[in-house]
């Protein structure tokens, strides 16, 4: 695994990244409770353990860049700057949600933040990302497209088609593979013969790098290099971000396919613990700093829950609205 040294760790920078990760962690944990209380319904896929991937990669993006994501997208959405209120309202199904309440957890859309979902079909977003990048290239824009997907998507035909196409056309896509070692209940060792995902991308002519997904600085460094590469017009890049999900695939998961010991081992080297430990060792923060951030981020999550609770439901009469595009107002 290579380790890119990003900007030197400063107190402010470290706290900023820690806050970003804690926002995600506390949001996800609150969702567990809300789901159990029947406030959030349908399918809920949480990214506990993968916060550094979301925060580190999106640090490298500019506002004009496009993001295509998966059903495990809350972290990406929060790191991108989507309003937590709107995100929570979306999970509640309220009209004030970012997708008008219509999509729920798996279908987050926010055009203002260039965040284009949110896809329930594994691998379904890759062709879209290739399309965005194609438009960016043809229109000679500075912007690039970041495409998140998991190790499971690597098995789908779409992955292979998109690697080839992006390389062939020299497109500014940054493929971000969150390898958390499991595709729902199937370990990658049982689904892939060639386990090195970065190697697969190279086989198609796509520049690729493997990254420690638990180290937010390593992730940020690698992401900046990859984004610069694509932005310069040097073609697509794939980052294989090795990480782990602490919770089940979705809420209703007995996790018969992995050991509790394995989960606990990974939890000990999770992204929040990793950064906190490092900053304390460097004398850049104290436990009080940490507790303060916990309090602030939990309070922010709580406010978003209240926003969502009191937000209105979309009227039934609007059920068929937006099946087709309406004229712009």
């Amino acid at each position, binding site marked *: 695994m290579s380790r890119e040294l990003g900007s030197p760790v400063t107190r402010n920078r470290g706290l900023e990244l820690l806050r970003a990760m804690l926002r995600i962690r506390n949001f996800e944990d609150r969702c567990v*409770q809300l789901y159990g209380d029947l406030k959030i319904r349908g399918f809920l896929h949480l990214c506990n353990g993968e916060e550094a991937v979301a925060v580190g990669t999106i640090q490298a993006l500019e506002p004009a860049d496009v993001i295509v994501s998966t059903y495990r997208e809350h972290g990406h959405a929060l790191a991108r700057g989507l309003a937590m209120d709107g995100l929570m309202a979306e999970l509640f199904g309220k009209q004030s949600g970012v997708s008008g309440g219509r999509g729920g957890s798996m279908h987050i859309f926010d055009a203002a933040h260039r965040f284009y979902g949110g896809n329930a079909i594994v691998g379904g977003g890759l062709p879209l990302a290739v399309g965005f990048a194609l438009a960016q290239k043809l229109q000679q824009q500075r912007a690039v497209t970041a495409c998140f997907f998991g190790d499971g998507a690597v098995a789908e035909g779409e992955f292979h088609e998109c690697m080839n196409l992006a390389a062939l056309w020299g497109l500014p896509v940054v493929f971000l593979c969150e390898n958390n070692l499991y595709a729902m209940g199937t370990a990658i060792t049982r689904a892939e013969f060639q386990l090195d995902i970065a190697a697969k991308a190279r086989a198609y002519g796509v520049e690729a790098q493997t990254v420690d997904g638990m180290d937010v600085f390593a992730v940020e460094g690698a992401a900046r290099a990859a984004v610069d590469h694509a932005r310069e017009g040097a073609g697509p890049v794939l980052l294989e971000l090795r990480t782990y999900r602490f919770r089940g695939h979705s*809420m*209703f998961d*007995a996790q*018969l396919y992995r050991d509790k010991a394995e989960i606990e081992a990974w939890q000990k080297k999770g992204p929040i613990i990793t950064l906190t430990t490092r900053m304390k060792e460097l004398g850049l923060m104290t436990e009080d700093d940490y507790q303060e951030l916990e309090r602030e981020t939990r309070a922010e999550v*709580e406010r978003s829950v209240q926003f969502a*609770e*009191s937000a209105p439901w979309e009227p039934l009469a609007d059920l068929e609205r937006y099946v087709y595009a309406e004229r712009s107002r």
Partner: protein
Amino acid sequence: MQIDFRLPSLGADMESATVTQWLKKPGEQIRRGETVAVIETDKGLIDIESFEDAVLETVVVQPGTKVPVGAVLAHFVVEAPSGASGPAVPATAMPAGAGAVPSPATPGPATPATHAASRLRMSPLARRRAQELGLALETLAERAGTEVIHVDDVERLAAESALSAAAPLPPGTAAAASVSDARVAMRIAIGNAMARAKREIPHYYLGHSVDFEPARAWLERHNAQVPVGERLIDGILIAKAVALAAARIEGFNGFFRDGRFESASAVNIGTAIAVRGGGLVAPALLDAARKDLQTLMREFSDLVARVRAGHMRSAEFAAATITVTSLGSDGVEELFPIINPPQVAIVGAGSVTERPWAHEGRVLARPVLTLALAADHRVTDGRAGSRFLRTISGLLARPESL
């Protein structure tokens, strides 16, 4: 402060679960995020966690018990005002009508369908036409004689019902019952049609009396020169005159349908023929304006014969574009008729009677015919109607022009 620890919903399909093991005992401390119990679901054993720092006070559901989602499993005591849960905010109520069960309809016995009548293999259109004509479906059932009843079968059967009412019956015929049924049915049908006409068509009436002497004289001269079978009658002159007038003057020949008047290209004179026993049919003399009197007479005779014998064709009923009706020779002087919808005009000819008449400055006894026009005021007005009647009277005054 005591709070309830409930069985959470963990999945869209999860309705219940069985508690298999408590990992904490009453009085024990619990940390936020710690597993408190293990439950068994369809998918297997799943850990459930506490979202607060708390102390387990009482266990409510013992291991081995299956409970629904939302059931209280235990009571906790939270140590301090929990930062994790804010003040309770009232949730927005779901919009009314979402999945609401409608209030039940007023209960009552269902009217059983009349299965006998509905056993007929009739097209929906035929069924509707039968309803309009007031035909009893039982009658149709007996007399259909075809596999499936279509709309022109209904029209035919309507006419036949009327005609068989006219035929003289051998006494004690078993058919008597069905004939009187048919007669009643036809009365109802006529009644329905006339009621509809009166309801929907704004009738206006014009009357005009004509010196019928020239026509009479012409007829005598003509009939003297032809065999008996080709002799013309008054009614044919009148029918032809009406046909020519209808062809020349807009608004009296055609149908009023769907809010508009559709002028017909040919003039088909509906000739009202009375049937014995009290009924009326009005089959059409087709394209009367373009046929000569002899042809019209022949066709009329044929019509009458077939009406009497009950052999009508449905096209002949549907085709009339304007009707002429008459009281014959032994009725009264004026006949004010009702339009047959969807037509827009009808001419009633009273009986020709000897009346005082101003002729070349003197008052004489002459045969006089009074014609009455009933017309649809949505299509024409008095001025047009007046022109129409004067045209007819003009033609009858010069019968050689017919």
